[in-house]
């Protein structure tokens, strides 16, 4: 048997005396996809950064084709054919695909001075590079006109055209719809066929099962195990990652008695916005979690924004607790008793350079001030209360800036803000994007507890497992129209996907 393409042996790395990687070993063969799993903080990204030369290892060895190599800087990794595809892509949006592909090595012409760009040659080279992976994107398209998945694909093509032998992908599907994920997987299989080794980092287990040959799990900086796909199950992987077993939520829920929701807390009548959604009627009762399932761009995100007042709708009525609410701005939404957890918590949810305490109380100043000044003790007491109740974990106490929290804990801070503001209705957008498995289960528990206390929750999600396991009732949306309604016991993946893809239910 030939030597593995890449071997990382006994890697050790500490920051300020804290071991973040403790004797971790992985190997990767040519033409294989190795999934790297672990909760946030398990050491995945440290390992990858060592491979890419961003960090220097404290101990251990890296071998390529069985030969020990030195990787001290990103340039060394590049020379060895190691490429990273990050979640945040780097590209020039106003330039064409071909220009982006060949940037830094654009073919030239123009005689001795060589001062002109040979556009024809450039487009031909780009076309050849795209053809290697059967990508049908015109080289002349501007980068900004491509979809997210297409930009990722261009990044992969670029890596390959620059002699990549090992490609590391960090959560490449975080912003993709299911069909786009399939397109990306097609590309990954193309890479495998060309003998490239792929390290695939993801939180989405179903994807990992689909694309990876072997799966490595890290936990707390230690290597828990590497297994062929066939030898692990969903549950055993979660257990390896979390270190304890998490009961299957859907089963638990199926056993529990059907909930008896209270009065209608949120009612939407005939809400329309041109190009976004059309005559939406829906009701959410107190104590009920309603899942709103649709593919990306189906209009559900815009719908929740409109209910909250973040965008304007053209027509329709919104009633909270049976009273019509005039909602033209987020302030109106908040005043009406609606809370809104946005899609991208770092951009839209949190003030990252403010403390956990101040972020939690951001929507509830009226109660916490007296004679125009904050009552510090009261504010502290209120925010501590939510930190305890939701189990928000942070290294440096309640004054830690939210920037330094993990995704799951950041999401809990946003949740806590609306609970502190004492809202009646909570609109959630993709509540567990970029949240690791353990924290995810935690958030679901919290949502159920909140519903049980009488909160009405409308949850937008494009994660079908999430919708199925958390919602009491599920609505599907397709091209801005509601296309189906399912009780929890009726709903199946097939039915939901069918309805969300525009099929009649």
């Amino acid at each position: 048997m030939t030597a593995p393409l890449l071997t990382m042996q006994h890697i050790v790395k500490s920051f300020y005396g804290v071991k973040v990687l403790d004797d971790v070993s992985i190997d990767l063969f040519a033409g294989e996809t190795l999934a790297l799993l672990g909760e946030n903080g398990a050491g995945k990204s440290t390992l990858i950064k060592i491979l890419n030369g961003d960090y220097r290892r404290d101990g251990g060895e890296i071998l390529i084709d069985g030969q020990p190599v030195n990787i001290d800087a990103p340039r060394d990794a590049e020379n060895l054919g190691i490429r990273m595809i990050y979640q945040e892509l780097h590209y020039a949006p106003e330039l064409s695909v071909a220009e982006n592909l060949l940037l830094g090595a654009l073919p030239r012409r123009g005689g001795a001075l060589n001062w002109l760009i040979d556009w024809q040659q450039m487009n031909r080279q780009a076309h050849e590079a795209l053809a290697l992976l059967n990508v049908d994107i015109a080289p002349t398209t501007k980068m900004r006109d491509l979809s997210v998945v297409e930009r990722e694909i261009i990044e992969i093509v670029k890596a390959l055209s620059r002699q990549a032998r090992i490609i590391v992908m960090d959560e490449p599907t975080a912003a993709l719809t299911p069909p786009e994920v399939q397109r990306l997987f097609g590309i990954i299989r193309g890479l495998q066929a060309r003998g490239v080794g792929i390290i695939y980092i993801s939180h989405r287990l179903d994807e990992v099962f689909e694309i990876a040959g072997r799966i490595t799990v890290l936990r707390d900086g230690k290597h828990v195990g590497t297994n062929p796909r066939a030898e692990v199950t969903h549950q055993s992987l979660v257990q390896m990652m979390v270190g304890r077993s998490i009961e299957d939520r859907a089963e638990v829920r199926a056993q529990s008695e059907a909930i008896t929701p209270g009065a209608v807390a949120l009612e939407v009548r005939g809400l329309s916005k041109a190009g976004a959604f059309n005559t939406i009627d829906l009701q959410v009762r107190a104590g009920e979690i309603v899942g709103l399932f649709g593919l990306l761009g189906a209009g559900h995100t815009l719908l929740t924004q409109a209910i909250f007042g973040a965008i304007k709708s053209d027509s329709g009525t919104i009633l909270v607790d049976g009273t019509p609410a005039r909602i033209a701005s987020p302030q109106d939404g908040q005043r009406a008793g609606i809370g809104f957890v946005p899609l991208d918590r770092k951009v839209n949810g949190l003030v990252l350079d403010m403390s956990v305490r101040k972020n939690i109380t951001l929507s509830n100043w009226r109660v916490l001030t007296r004679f125009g000044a904050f009552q510090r003790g009261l504010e502290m007491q209120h925010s501590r209360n939510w930190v305890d109740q939701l189990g928000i974990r942070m290294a440096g106490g309640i004054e830690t800036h939210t920037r330094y929290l993990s995704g799951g804990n950041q999401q809990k801070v946003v949740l806590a803000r609306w609970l502190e503001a004492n809202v009646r209705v909570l609109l959630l957008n993709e509540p567990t994007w970029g949240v690791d498995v353990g924290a995810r289960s935690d958030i679901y528990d919290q949502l159920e507890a909140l519903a049980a206390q009488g909160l009405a929750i409308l949850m937008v999600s494009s994660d079908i497992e999430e919708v199925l396991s958390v919602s009491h009732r599920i609505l599907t949306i397709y091209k801005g129209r509601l296309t189906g309604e399912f009780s929890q016991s009726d709903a199946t993946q097939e039915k939901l996907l069918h309805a969300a893809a525009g099929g009649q239910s």
Partner: protein
Amino acid sequence: MRSVQMRSVQEIASLVVMLVIIVVVMSAASPVFFTTRNLENTLLDITTVGILAIFTTMLMIGGGLDLSIGSTLALGGVIVGVYQEAWGILPAAGAAILVCGLVGLINGFLVTYVGINPLITTLGMLSIARGVAFVLADGLTIPVFDLQGTQTDAYTLFTQFGEGRVLGLDTPVAVMLALFVLALLVMQFTPYGRAMYAIGGNYQASNLAGLAVRRYRMIAYMLSGLSAGVACVLLTSRLYAADPRAATGMELTVITAAVLGGISLAGGKGTLIGTMLGVLILSALMNGMKLLSTSTDAQNIALGLVLLLAVGLDQIRQRNFNIMRFLRSSRLVPEVARVSPAEGSQS
């Protein structure tokens, strides 16, 4: 991970060190520098910049910027000068403050509701206010004192703004300190101060948290204008004259002091104490150079150097700048624009 509190303490400490070094060096170089008289004069000299800097700091923490304060101040002064006889000196002074507040309000409206970039808005207003000041004053410096002798009492009171003393301090200094303490309390303990940090830190998130982001921003611009109004009354009273050329370029000194003191152009960061230390550092430097008979041009050059040095060092510290890595990687490779979805969507 360094604690953030620690960092700001470090920042303040390094500003204090900088101030001490300048004072020590200047005292050694000029025997006049460290005298009660010179220090008192310096303090009086910085009141205009100081008052403007307090409100510029609050505005910039909230993610705003106001380049028009110098012009607004001149406009206010001219209003005092032109209307002192027709309206009486005290009503004219009141009107000047109101007009300055109105200018700020217009800035705020254009930025928050019309959506013009703050730099452009206040650059335009810089031109407009200065232009109106020149038109009203006919391009001339207007004497401000009781020419007819009909408002003796009112002028006596008006003169007190610039020349009187309160609690053993010159009135302008006392006003500046009072405003400073007030602003400090507001930023530390009130929703308004919290809102400035939140909005400057993340406008979109603050909006989606239900904060009245536009109203807060408007108020910040209005206060910036009002501060120019207060400063113009103090200055006119002290100088017995209103000059349409007054405070030309002062906005740059003010912003320099703020940035030197740790205020970020992006908003959300910095403290009033930092800004005030910035003001003190700049004025100690300028005053010292003046005593050493350096030309104004040289002082301007020093001003610019201090700004670039301070901000440059801070950037380097933040990025864990590594000179070896820099040299190794500084081959002539074309730089690819870094556009992430998150950054792209922030304005």
